[in-house]
């Protein structure tokens, strides 16, 4: 995709997005609702036309083609299964429209039913299937014509939590087995992190960062990305020195730690760094880089969250696993020190 822009009247839904999606990858568009991710998907499918820019598929411009002329299929958010057709007829619909012979359609449908574990359900009406089964039919239907790209528009949002988890694994398996490029839209960061090869985080019509789940989570390039995904501590710091891909920064307490920084940025002066709560440790006063008073302990079962009022202002959250049963060893209003692991802090771009 090249310099895609989409205007709805005076509202710019998508602003100059350029993305390259590699073949055979599981690519996710992640962002809050209204960030333009669905519009982007609909432009790839052909339901919307870009106001500017092109959609290229293997180097050919497909941005002006009608949806039925594009080798791209969609799994709709509400599945959009044809209620008057059986499971098999639904799955075979695309091939039938392409004018494939009946024998070929039948054999593909059979393969597809097997692929999504719905053998023997071919003649059922789709209206009698459970939500998870409908989901599988929708997948099979979109995969049957072997599209070059499969688009998935928040397909898991209608399922309950347990089913959603198992469908996540299922989707990943299908992607690996078929080798088809998946473009997945979601606002659920966990979904994106578990399934994707690469993620594009979007906000207000622009792509903020593209990278592997690890990049996105551990090396957020800017405040929006860090904030949107997971919990984060933001700290003000001064850059002391830069060497290679690391920089030394001085915290408000005067302690120095090493931090990574995004590509294409030379950090200097005052910067904001982020530290994930699980990358810090609590200790007795004087043992870490930040000192403060333990304000609140939130027990979460597997973990504890420690809210620390840092000397000099601000709250820092430390997450520690409950490795053993019993009290955590700290009490509220106690003075503590926060240690930050090596190379876990990331300097933000802005």
């Amino acid at each position, binding site marked *: 995709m090249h310099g895609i822009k989409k205007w709805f009247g005076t509202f710019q839904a998508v602003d100059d997005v350029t993305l390259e999606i590699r073949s055979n990858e599981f690519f996710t568009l992640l962002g809050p609702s209204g960030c333009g991710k669905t519009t982007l998907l609909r432009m790839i499918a052909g339901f919307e*036309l*870009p*106001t*500017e*820019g092109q959609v290229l598929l293997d180097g050919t*411009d497909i*941005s*002006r083609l009608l949806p039925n002329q594009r080798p791209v299929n969609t799994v709709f958010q509400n599945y959009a299964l044809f209620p008057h057709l059986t499971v098999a007829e639904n799955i075979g619909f695309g091939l039938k429209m392409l004018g494939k012979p009946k024998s070929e359609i039948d054999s593909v449908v059979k393969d597809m039913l097997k692929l999504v574990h719905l053998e023997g359900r071919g003649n059922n009406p789709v209206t009698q299937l459970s939500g998870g089964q409908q989901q599988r039919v929708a997948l099979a239907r979109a995969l049957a014509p072997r599209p070059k790209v499969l688009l998935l528009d928040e397909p898991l949002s209608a399922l309950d939590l347990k089913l959603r988890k198992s469908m996540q694994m299922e989707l990943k398996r299908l992607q690996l087995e078929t080798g088809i490029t998946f473009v997945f839209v979601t606002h659920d960061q966990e979904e994106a992190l578990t399934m994707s090869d690469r993620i594009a985080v979007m906000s207000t019509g622009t792509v903020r960062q593209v990278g592997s789940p690890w990049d996105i989570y551990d090396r957020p390039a800017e405040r929006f990305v860090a904030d949107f995904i997971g919990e984060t501590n933001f700290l003000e710091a001064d850059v002391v020195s830069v060497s290679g891909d690391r920089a030394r920064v001085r915290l408000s307490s005067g302690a120095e730690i090493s931090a990574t920084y995004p590509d294409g940025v030379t950090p200097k002066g005052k910067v904001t760094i982020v530290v994930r709560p699980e990358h810090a440790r609590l200790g007795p006063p004087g043992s870490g880089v930040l000192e403060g008073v333990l304000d609140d302990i939130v027990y979460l079962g597997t973990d504890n969250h420690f809210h620390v009022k840092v000397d000099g202002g601000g709250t820092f959250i430390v997450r520690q696993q409950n490795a053993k049963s019993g009290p955590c060893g700290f009490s509220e209003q106690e003075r503590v020190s926060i240690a930050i692991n090596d190379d876990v802090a990331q300097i933000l771009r802005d």
Partner: protein
Amino acid sequence: MTLSAQDATEQRQKKHVRDRWLLSAPALILIIAASVGPLLIVVLYSFLAPGSYGDVKWEFSTEGWFNVLFTRDIFDDTVSLADAHFSIFWRSIKLAFATTVFCLIFGFPTAYFIATRAPHNRSLWLFLITIPFWTNMLIRTFAIQEVIRSEGIINTLLMKIGIISAPIQMMFTDFAIMLGMTYVFLPLMVLPLYASLEKLDFRLIEAGYDLYASRFGVLWRIIIPLVKPGIIAGSILVFVPALSSYVVPRVLGGGKNLMVGNLIELQFGQGRNWPLGAALSVTLVIIVLFAMLYYVRNASKSGGSAHG
């Protein structure tokens, strides 16, 4: 593909709208040709002179409209108010109004009754109301006629029991027309009333009783104000067709108790005064339009929830 992006979007948009006009064209043409368009001809005809054997002479004349209001004496050309027309219009309005009131008196409790049934029973009761509505109006009028005519079942029964010695003349009276119209148009009152009552929040009624209202107090001060849009909708839906009713007065009213519809027919039949008939038709349409306008105003004021 050398199309610019805007061009392509615009082209799709244009095609979308053009397709939609093409698709609706047959319906629009048919309705304009055989329903709406001819109305304009009626307006035109109301300004022409009557022909000697029906139809019109192609010359401009306001005689038709003049005749709606006045009559010219054949012998001495003196002009007087057209009492017959006034009285027929007046009777039509009175009868239509009375019909509306009766439909409301019977229809409101019925609609309320249906709306307070268990949800799965409601559609059956509603169905019972709509069946007569979809059966031929002429047949229903005929059925009423059979019941009330001198040799009909009511008179025969009453005479057998000995309450009366001679049949009561019910046919060919205003009462017969009103009865017939109430019978025929009742479903038109019940359906919109039901639509309003069904949406009624019964917690409000609980609140009413909680605040010491009597049964009647709740009905008068809570239920009726809340379903007022439905009452207005139902009343208009009954009043309009009742006012322009043709079949019922023809069958039950006999030759003397005319309503506007019959008066119009008369001008195109025996009267042979098409311009007058046309002018009367336009007058009727104007009255109906005003009633409709009143309805639409009210419906939009109350959030359009009246008709449903």
